[in-house]
């Protein structure tokens, strides 16, 4: 029993990270109908830049803050100079484009930092704490806290503020939004900024628990996307729930089947889901028409 609970607890932590990635995908997708396949690279950059800045003797908090700002800026620049430029491109071109950007970011990261893996100091002590026999790293609690705060803030922004209503308006009907004086381009830029910032935060909080290196973004990106599909693309809440489920399934698979197959399990779930119900567990909208 304790073993099972332990696996569930581990799964919740990784599921939380997938949830942030999934919500990042959806934020951008809803506004600009682009799936940003460079989403995972935002996480990688968040972790790596923080490690690099701490290496330059900056204090932890300042390094993390600068890293978040930097990744946010990268998201904005990406929207402004690349995505906005090819507005009318067909889906296949958009996929190639964001795959290109993610490859480029990964390549530059490996050029700057090499292929070594880096670890970040945990925010509080390394000592795990025990809850009813289940051992939880203190960093895991920080991760879950960060995930829940981010999800809450995003929900608040989208559902309770005027800005959120503007963003939603653009996702429902960009033309009508423009007529009301809302700039879809600006909202799209904002979406990229949000996904950059949340991605970077996620990247920073997981860096102490699992080491970070130039290529961690790919796996996190695909798993976040899997969660977004499982939950129903376009539905942030569904995606978050699906992400936690995915994390737990993966952790159980790693525990009871084979730890080497951990990642394969997540992908088999994805392909299985696409077979049975491509619109996701909770969604009915926008099936497979990505980018249109």
């Amino acid at each position, binding site marked *: 029993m304790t073993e099972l609970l332990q696996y569930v607890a581990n799964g919740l932590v990784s599921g939380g990270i997938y949830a942030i990635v999934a919500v990042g995908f959806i934020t951008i997708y809803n506004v600009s109908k682009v799936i940003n396949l460079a989403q995972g690279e935002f996480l990688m950059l968040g972790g790596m830049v923080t490690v690099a800045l701490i290496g330059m003797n900056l204090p932890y908090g300042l390094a993390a803050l600068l890293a978040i700002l930097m990744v946010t800026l990268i998201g904005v620049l990406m929207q402004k100079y690349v995505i906005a430029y090819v507005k009318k491109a067909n889906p*296949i071109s958009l996929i190639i484009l964001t795959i*290109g950007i993610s490859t*480029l970011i990964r390549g*530059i990261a490996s050029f700057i930092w090499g292929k070594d893996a880096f670890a970040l100091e945990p925010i509080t002590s390394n000592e795990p704490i025990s809850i009813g026999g289940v051992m939880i790293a203190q960093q895991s609690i920080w991760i879950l806290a960060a995930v829940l705060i981010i999800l809450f803030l995003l929900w608040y922004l989208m559902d309770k503020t005027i800005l959120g209503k503007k963003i939603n308006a653009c996702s429902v009907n960009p033309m009508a939004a423009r007529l009301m004086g809302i700039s879809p381009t600006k909202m799209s830029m904002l979406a990229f900024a949000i996904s950059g910032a949340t991605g970077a935060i996620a990247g920073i909080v997981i860096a102490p628990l699992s080491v970070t290196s130039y290529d961690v973004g790919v796996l996190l990106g695909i798993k976040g996307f899997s969660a977004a599909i499982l939950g129903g693309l376009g539905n942030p809440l569904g995606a978050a729930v699906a992400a936690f489920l995915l994390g737990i399934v993966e952790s159980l698979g790693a525990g009871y089947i*084979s730890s*080497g197959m951990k*990642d394969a399990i997540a992908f088999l779930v994805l392909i299985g889901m696409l077979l049975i119900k491509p619109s996701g567990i909770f969604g009915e909208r926008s099936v497979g028409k990505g980018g249109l």
Partner: protein
Amino acid sequence: MMKQIIDKWGKSIGIYLFLMILFPFVMPDEYYRSVGIIIGLQAIVTIGLCLVMGLAGQISLGQAAFWGIGAYTSAVLTTKYGLPPFIGLIAAAIVPGLFAFILGRAIAGLQGYYLAMATLAFGYIVQIGITEWESVTGGANGMISIPQMTFFGGSELSMYFLIWGVVTCVLLFSLNLLNSRVGRAFRAIHKSEIAATSMGIDVRKFKLNAFVVSGMFAGISGGLYAHYMGILDPQPFGLHESIKFLTMVVIGGMTSIWGALIGTILIGFISEALVLLSEVVPGLQGDVDTIVFGAILVLIVMFMPEGLVPRIRAAFEKGQAKKAKAMAEEAQRKQQVERKAAT
């Protein structure tokens, strides 16, 4: 069928054959021949990928996985079961073809991002599977002493011609496909699936066929790769290679088989140059080629979405038209002068 192709692409095929045969003799160095062999192997994969991307309008980010399945199928059959490489190669085409069929059947209704992610995930599953199935594939350590092909003595030169012979077959097959009723159906699908469906084209079936053919091409190439290298490990069959294949097709021009071939040759030499560069320049760590591939993908989509070959062809045709026009004007002027002289 052959006649039609020769009528349409005779000149290009002539130039291709001439350069292909000339290459190993003007590059007598074994090293360049081996580069030529690797590029040939990649061309077999990218021509198949071009059928999927350019013609059926779909994207596959897992082409290296089919390549890997082919390589391991032939390697395991010949090494563990002692079958001749020829039989291994046939299996190397069939097994990835089956995988493509099953995966394709499963995801034939998917488009765009969904298909991209499904193939990306498939690529990961295959690479993990190869690594984890240690008893058969040797896991991360890989396999050694895979039998070499004994084709006219098995020298580097004979391997070069064997592999480029296969490239030529694949190329002619694909050009024929492009020129046939099937090719027209593919192009219709690429332009508008709805219109194609309403014309009675079974879109799903065509996309599936393209996917299976591309998987088989990649598998054959993988089998040849295994027997050429003699050793295998899971490392070359991941996302990095799939993105390299993608870059090759995109830079040449997605909708053109010739584009895929020229893109492959171009990127093949660029990556080789980068390897040499990183040996000469100290401090060039990491995958410099990754930066180059990423940048090429982004720049092509932004500034030249149709790719190099269609762009060059358009420029060439424009030049020809200009020349023809100038000649016509010149002739007219001469005629006028003559007429004036006569009166």
